[in-house]
Each structure stands twice: as C-alpha cells, then as structure tokens.
C-alpha cells in the first residue's frame, strides 16, 4: 500500500475526494510517528497499483502533499 502524507485533515479529506473522482479507493489514516517530524499528521492510503493515477489526480485537483511513502 502507498500513503500520501498531507498537511492536515482538511487536506486529507480533499485528497480522498480527489482520488474518488478518479475512481481510486482510499482511506484517511493518521501517520505513524516515524513518518512525520512535527507530530500528528494525516495521510491517505491507497493501493500502489494506482500510484501514477493518484499522483495525477492530486495534481489535477491541486492537493498539496508532502510525499508518497510505500508501506
């Protein structure tokens, strides 16, 4: 699975909707402490099979993400 790390829950919900518009299933997750330096943060988890499509969806919908991590 892949996780895109996002700045906040607001951006996580926006990201989830962006992926849904491209028919990509995703789930909002709280990031593990090792994934973030500043404390609590959120991300969206999706199947890495959809990685390129997901990147495209996030870009098209102007969702700013920090990075995408392969779990």
């Amino acid at each position, binding site marked *: 699975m892949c996780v895109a790390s996002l700045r906040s829950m607001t951006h996580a919900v926006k990201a989830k909707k962006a992926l849904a518009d491209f028919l990509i299933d995703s789930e909002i997750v709280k990031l593990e402490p090792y994934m973030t330096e500043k*404390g*609590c943060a959120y991300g969206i988890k999706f199947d890495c099979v959809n990685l390129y499509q997901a990147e495209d969806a996030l870009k098209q919908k102007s969702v700013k993400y920090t990075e995408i991590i392969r779990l």
Partner: protein
Amino acid sequence: MIYLDNAATTFPKPSCVAEEMTKCLKKYCGNPGRSSHKLSVASSEKIYEARVLLAEMFGADAENVVFTYNTTYALNMAIKSNLRYSSHVLISDIEHNSVIRPIAECVKQRLCTYSVFESGGSDDEIIKSIKKNMRNDTSMLVCTHVSNVGSRTLPIKKIGALCKERGIFFIVDGAQSAGIKSISVKDMNIDALCIPGHKGLYGPQGVGAIIYGSDKIGRTLIEGGTGINSLEMTMPDFLPERYEAGTLATPCIASLAESLKWLKTVNTDKIRSHEENLYTTLCDLLSEKDEITVYKMNDYPGNTLMFNVKNLSSATVASELDKRDICVRSGFHCSPSAHKLLKTGDGGAVRVGISVFNKPADIYSLYEALCDIIKNKRPR
C-alpha cells in the same frame, strides 16, 4: 407568531437544519481532525462539505474557508491578525459595532489610527470619499457590504479594485449580504469576507466564517490544539487550521452545510426579489400614515426597513407589537453611526427584517397592528 427580526437572525430555519443537527449529535459527532477513526473522519468530511459549499458560493478555495463562531469573531480575527502596526485604517460611516469596536480597541492600544469615509451618494462619490481619506500609510479598509440599518449597499467590487491597486488589505462585513447578494472574493478582490451562518444562509447560531481571497497568512489571535503538528510550539502556517484552534462547532457547521444546499435549490436571486417586494409593499403602506416616519438611506429596496411612530419610542412600539405576536427589533441595532446618519441617533428606530419565509399577509398584519397601536396610543 409573525417573525420580522430576520436581520438579527433568520427564523424559522429550513427543516433540514434541525434534522442534520440532530443526526450529527446522534450519529457521527466525533471530534473533527483529531483522529482517523470513523466518527472523527465522518465529522471532518461533513465540515469539508460545508467548506466546499461556502467556497463555491463565495468564489474561493475550500481551504481558505475558516470557521468561527459568528461574524463578530470573524471580523475581530480578520482585522487584528492582518493589521499592520502603526498604520492607518479606513472604515465607512455606517459600520456595525463589530467593526467599530475592534478598530477603536486597536486605536486605544496605539496599534493604528483610522479615518471614516462617507457611504452616501453614487458609487463614484463613495470612491471619491475613500480616495480623499486614503493616506500613504493606509494598510487596511474594512466596510460593510449591506448596512443592518436600512440596507444601504456599498460598491464592494469597485472598492476592492481600488484596494488592490493601492496594496490595501480589504475586509468586508457580509453579515447582512451573505446569501442575499452575489459575492465573489476573487472577482471583487476581497482579502477577507466575514459572514454569519445564522442570517441569510439560514444556518444555526454558533457558526460564522472568514472566506479568504488568498492563502496569505497573518498573525494568530487564538492558539491551541489543531490535531496536527502537535510537537510544534506554534500554530500551522497554512489555512484553515492556522485560525481554527480548538474543537469546531461540528453540529452547527454540519447543519449549515444542509442550509447551504437548501439555499442552492431556492436561488438567492429569487429570495432577494421576494424580500424586496415585501419591503416595497411595507414601505408604501407605512408611508401613507402621517403618524409614521419611514427612514431611508437609499432609494433602492432591501430587506430591512426602519421606522418610528410619532410620540412613541421605538422600544414601546416593539413591545406593543410583541404583545400582538409580532417580533421586530427596536433601538440602535449596534450601529450608532448609521443611526446618526438616519437622524435617529437619539431614540433609535424600529427595524423590520424580512426573510424568504415571510408572506404578504405578515406585512399586512404588521400594518394593521401599527394602525391599532396608533389608534389606542397607549399600552394594552
């Protein structure tokens, strides 16, 4: 009961508002943005839905919608977080205390100076008055879109263009216009639009918002938990979380989302036309009575009408109407300078605030009640 105090808060609300509030409290009211469990995410998604609906209505990005408790909080935040210290601020001569008092406090603390521009006359005359009062150190202009005393409307698109040209931060008080007039923060160059949820948007009391025209950030007024960056000592440096410390009013925001959807089905142009028709009917009826003085700041209709009855205080008239099950508001409506312009600065006036739910029969009942009060000229 006939409710005509809709400029203070609209009543009744569409049924979807109470239904969603109950549903939220019973089914999904987790703490938004604090966890990734189902109820927290459900609350967050509902709040995001409200952000998107407001963003669509006011021509902004969803992340630039910051929730507050009401317009007063929104105005205080927008003013105090973006005020450039030791600079000059411009306000109009019809501002509500929610603008006058924060500015007066900033002046008292020697953070800024301010001047007042005239809101009367044509658009060109208003712009001329603004230019006349502008200084080299003017950094902010704050004004109402529509006055809560008599519906005077300021040309905010033209003012926004001027502010953009001069690099002035432009804050609009949309307390009386949100949901009634078409507003686009981007098209009108508004830096911060401050709105209530409980007036023209027909949501519940307890929620307001600042709609930012850009994602440029200022100082914070309230600091605290945001559910993110918890190891940091400072607030996030991005919207909306920077200005949303503490738990949001999820049930209020959730039901606001429903009222916004309802509003889209009703159409704000039709609402405005309906309210203006009732205003005109009332204005014509009251103008015929020698014992009644109707106060107008402008020739065009609106949805709030001011009047007084000869030899009776506004408080007495409102009280007599209340005895006849008609709700209106008397006094100064938190807008002393607007009353001064109306020449009602001594005793205030009676204000009738019309909503989409009022019918012509309400207006005729009000007129008949006033005729009865005039006839009796004494409390019942």
